[in-house]
C-alpha cells in the first residue's frame, strides 16, 4: 500500500518546485497508474513517502499545439488524447495506432505521455513511436528563483530500464516532435494478450513515398527487445531512395533479428521482430498508398 504524509496538488510550476524544495523525498505523480500497483505485495510492498506531488492540475503541463513543423504536447497529456485529439490524429497518426495498443480504454484516460517516458520501462509502448517522430523532451528546474529549461532528444533521455536524464528536482514539462501528416504509419505489438499486455516486441514505422514511388523518408523504431528503444537507422538508410519491393522488405527483415538484446525469450523475439519489420513496412507503405504483394513465409519455429 502507498502511504504518505502529504498529498499535494500544486496549481502552478512554481508551487510544484516549492514543494520539491521543501520536502525531501517528495515524489511526483501524474496518472498514478504505475505508482499504486508498484506499492503492493510482490513489487515494492508497502511504501511510505513524505509527500506525493500530483502535477496533473498544473495547466502548463497540459495542452496540445502546433509550432510550425513541430507538435508540442504537455507531459500530463493522457494517452487517450493521442487517439482522439484532432490535431494529433491529423499530424501524427502513428501515435493513435500506438495508443490503441496501450493498456486499455480506462488506463489510457488516466496514464500520461510523460509518465510513460519518465518510467523508462523497456516495454513503454509510446517510446518507439515518439522516437520515430524525432521527439525532444523539455525538462525544467528552478535555480535561485528562476525556472530554467533544457531540451534533450528522447534518444538520449532514456538511459536504461527506469533510468533517465531527469535530475532530482527536475520536472518533465513537454514533448516536441515532427508533424508528419503525409507519412504512412504502422504500429505493431505483441504481448501475452491483446489488451493490458506488456509488450514482448513493439515497433513503429513511418514512411513517405515520392511521386516515383520511391521511399523518400523512413523511420523505424523498436521497443521491448532491449534495455532502451532504438531506431533502426541502418534499415532506414538501406531503403531510403529505393523503390520498395517485397524482396527488399524481406532482406531488411532478415537483417534486424540480431537486434534483440533482451534477456528472455530471445529466439521468439528474433523471429517476431523480423516479421514485424516486414509487416509494418508493408502496412505503412499500404497506408501511404503503395500496396505490395506479401511474400509467403514459413515459421522458423515449427
Amino acid at each position, binding site marked *: *500500500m*502507498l*502511504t*504518505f*504524509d*502529504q*498529498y499535494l*496538488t500544486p496549481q502552478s510550476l512554481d508551487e510544484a518546485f516549492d514543494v520539491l524544495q521543501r520536502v525531501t523525498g517528495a515524489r511526483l*505523480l501524474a*496518472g*498514478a*497508474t504505475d505508482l*499504486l*500497483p508498484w506499492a*503492493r*505485495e*510482490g513489487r515494492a510492498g*508497502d511504501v511510505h513517502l513524505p509527500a*506525493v506531488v*500530483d502535477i*496533473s492540475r498544473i495547466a502548463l503541463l497540459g495542452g496540445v499545439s502546433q509550432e510550425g513543423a513541430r507538435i508540442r504536447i504537455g507531459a500530463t497529456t493522457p494517452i*487517450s488524447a493521442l*487517439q*482522439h485529439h484532432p490535431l*494529433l*490524429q*491529423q499530424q501524427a*497518426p502513428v501515435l*493513435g*495506432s500506438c*495508443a*490503441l*495498443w496501450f*493498456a*486499455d*480504454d*480506462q*488506463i489510457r*484516460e*488516466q496514464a500520461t505521455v510523460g509518465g510513460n517516458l519518465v518510467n523508462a520501462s523497456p516495454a513503454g509502448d509510446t517510446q518507439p513511436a515518439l522516437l520515430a517522430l524525432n521527439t525532444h523532451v523539455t525538462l525544467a528546474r528552478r535555480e535561485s528563483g528562476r525556472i530554467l529549461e533544457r531540451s534533450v532528444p528522447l534518444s538520449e533521455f532514456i538511459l536504461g530500464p527506469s533510468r533517465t536524464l531527469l535530475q532530482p528536482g527536475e520536472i518533465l514539462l513537454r514533448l516536441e516532435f515532427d508533424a508528419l501528416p503525409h507519412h504512412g*504509419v*504502422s504500429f*505493431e505489438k*505483441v504481448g501475452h494478450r*491483446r*489488451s*493490458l499486455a506488456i509488450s514482448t516486441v513493439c515497433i513503429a514505422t513511418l514512411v513517405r513515398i515520392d511521386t516515383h514511388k520511391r521511399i523518400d523518408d523512413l523511420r523505424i523504431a523498436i521497443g521491448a527487445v532491449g534495455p532502451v528503444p532504438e531506431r533502426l537507422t541502418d534499415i532506414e538508410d538501406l531503403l531510403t531512395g529505393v523503390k520498395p519491393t517485397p524482396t527488399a522488405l524481406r532482406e531488411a527483415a532478415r537483417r534486424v533479428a540480431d537486434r534483440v538484446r533482451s534477456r528472455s525469450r530471445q529466439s521468439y523475439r528474433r523471429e517476431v521482430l523480423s516479421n514485424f519489420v516486414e*509487416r509494418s513496412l*508493408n*502496412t505503412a507503405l*499500404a*497506408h501511404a498508398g503503395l*500496396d505490395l*504483394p*506479401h*511474400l*509467403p513465409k*514459413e515459421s522458423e519455429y515449427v
Partner: protein
Amino acid sequence: MSDTLLSDGSVAQGCHPTTEINAMVNGRKVKRTVPNHYRVIDFIREELKLTGNKEGCGAGECGTCSMFVDGKLIKSCLSPVQKINGCSVETIDDMDRDSGMSLLQQAFNKCGASQCGYCIPGMVMAATSTLRQNPVASRDQIKEGLGGNICRCTGYQKIIDAVELARDVQSGAKPHSALDEDSATVSFIGQRTRRLDSPAKVTGAIKYAADMFMPNMLHMQVLRSPHAHARIVHIDFEAARLIPGVECVLTCDDVPGVDNFGVFIEDQPTLARGVVRYVGEAVVAVAAETLDIARAAVAAIHVEYEQLPTLFDPHEAMKDGAVQIHDFAQNNICKHTRIRKGDVDAALAQADFVVEQTYNTQSIEHAYLEPEAGLAYLEADGCVTVQSPSQNITHHRHMLARILGRPINKVRMIMSTVGGGFGGKEDMIYQGMLALAAIKTRRPVRYVFTREESIKASAKRHPFNIRYTMGLQRDGRIVATKMVMVSDGGAYALSTPGVMNKSAILGPGPYAIPNVWVDSIGVYTNNTPSGAFRAFGAFQSEFATECHLDLCAQKLGMDPVALRRINLMRDGATTHTRQQLDRVLAVECLEAAIKAAGWEPGVPYRQGHSQPQRTDFNYEGSRDFYLIGGKTKPSVPLNVAAHHTQGDMS
C-alpha cells in the same frame, strides 16, 4: 480513528493523515474526510458504502472497479482519492437513474450475460462507455472497449451479445421488446433459462461478502509465513496488542476445540501450530477497528522461526529418509489410489505395440474474480454465524463446530454470493479465524483478502506427473493401460484424496480396456496446498490419456478419431472400477462432435497439410481496422493464399 493525532502532533499507529473530499457522486453532493491514502475505490465502497463496483485485483488488471469521473471511464483502484476533488463520479449503483435497469443492464439480463456477477459492474460500465463514445460500435470495437475487463466465467460471448443487443435497440434497429425477458416454457431443455439473480447482478445490487457492513464491525488482517517449512520458536505480539483499536490477536493457542480439520484428512490447523509448512500459511490473525490499524498491528508482530529442510518435488518427498512434513504420513504420501483390473504385465508383453510417454501438468490458480472474504458475528443466543462464499457450507459448519468446541446448533454458515469459485472455495482456509475473532470480541468481524493474498494462500490445481504405458493391437484395440501418476498435494491435504480418486477412476477414459493399472499418488510437499478445481483431477489424467491416444494413432498410422471409435465403451460396458453400465452414448457423442468440428480423417501428423491457408478471418494481431485518424485500410490483401504454391508447403 484515522485522524487520531497524538499530543505531539504526530499520527497514532495505524492512523493516517486525513483529507477532505468534495465531489458529486451519482448526482449527489458529497463531502467527507477520509484517510489520505484512500484510492477512489476505497472512498466509494468503504466510505460511501456504494458497493456496486467491486475490487478484484487492486492493480488495474480486472476492470470491475471501473467508474466514470467527469464522464471518463477510469479504473478506480489506480486513482488516489484526491483526484476526484471537484469532479463528478458515476458508479454502477446509479447507472439506471433509479429507473430499474438501464438499457444495457436490460440487455445483459436478457442475454444471461452474468454468471458469478463479480465482473459485471465493470463490464456494464465499460459497455456504457463504449456505446457513449460510439453508438454504432461494431462487435470488434465492442471487444476493444471491453478489453480492460476480465471475466473468468462466461467466455465473454454473452456479454458481447448483450452489448450488441443494447446497441441495436438504442439505434432502433431492434424493437424494445427484444429486451423483454423470455417467458417460462414447459420444457427447459434447449431453452434459454432466465437467471433469477441476474437483475441484482447487472445493477450491482447483489451483496458479496466484501460488500457487507455491520454496525461496530471490526476488520481482520493476517500475518502469513514467509517460510516454506519452519518451526515457530516464538511469537511476540505484545506490541500489536497494545495499539489502540486492536481488539484481538489470535494464534493457535486461542482455538478452544479440536484444531485439526479438513474435508478428507484432518491435518489443518486454524492458525499454524508450532510449524509452518508453506509460504503464505496463516500464523497470527488480528481484528481491529479499522483496516489500517489491523495492518499496522500485523506489521508490529514479530515471529521467530527456525528453518527446517524443505521439499518442493513430490518425487523427492516420497523417497525414504526425506523429511516428514506430517507425522502421520509415511514417505509424505497423502493418498494412494490404486486400480487393478486384469493382468496388465501379461497383456503388455503380448501387445503388437507398446507406447510409452510421460506427461506433466502445472499448478493452476483459479483466479476467480472475487478474492476470498467473510463476515462473522455472534447472535444473541450465542450462535456464531459466518457468511462467506464457501462452496461446501455443510462440511464447513461441521468443521467449525469442532474447531470452536460448540454444538452444531450454535454454529451457522451462510453461503454469500460466490464471485466465482471453480472449486477454489471448497476448502476452508479462513472461516475459523473469523468465527473465533467474533466470539472473542463479541463484535462482527470482516476479512477481505487482497488478490495477492488470495493467490498466495488459496489452493491450486494439482500438478501431475503421469507415466503412461499403453499396449495396442495392430487393428487399434487397446489391450492394456498403465498409468502411474504422482501429484503435488502441497502442505495440507485439503481435497487431495478426492482428487486422487477421481483422477484414477476417470483417468483411463471412456474406453473399453480389459487390463488396467492405475496408481494415483498425492504427496505432501512444502508448496501451496493443492485442492479442488473443476473436474477434480480428471482434467489432468484425461489430458494425458487423450494426448496418448493421439500419439498411439500416429504410431499406428491411424486416424485418431477412428482409434477412439474402436475403443469407446458401448452399451453394457464395464468401467475400469467394474461398474456395470446400461446405456453408453460415447460413440454418438464422438460422431456429433466430429460432425460439428468438420473433422477431416487422417493420421495426426498429416492434418492440415493438404489445406490451403485460411483467409476468412482477420489477420491475427492486427488492429488496423480500428485505426483512429488517417486512412484506414486492411493491412493484408485478401488474396494472400494466391501467393502460396504447393512448393512452399513442403
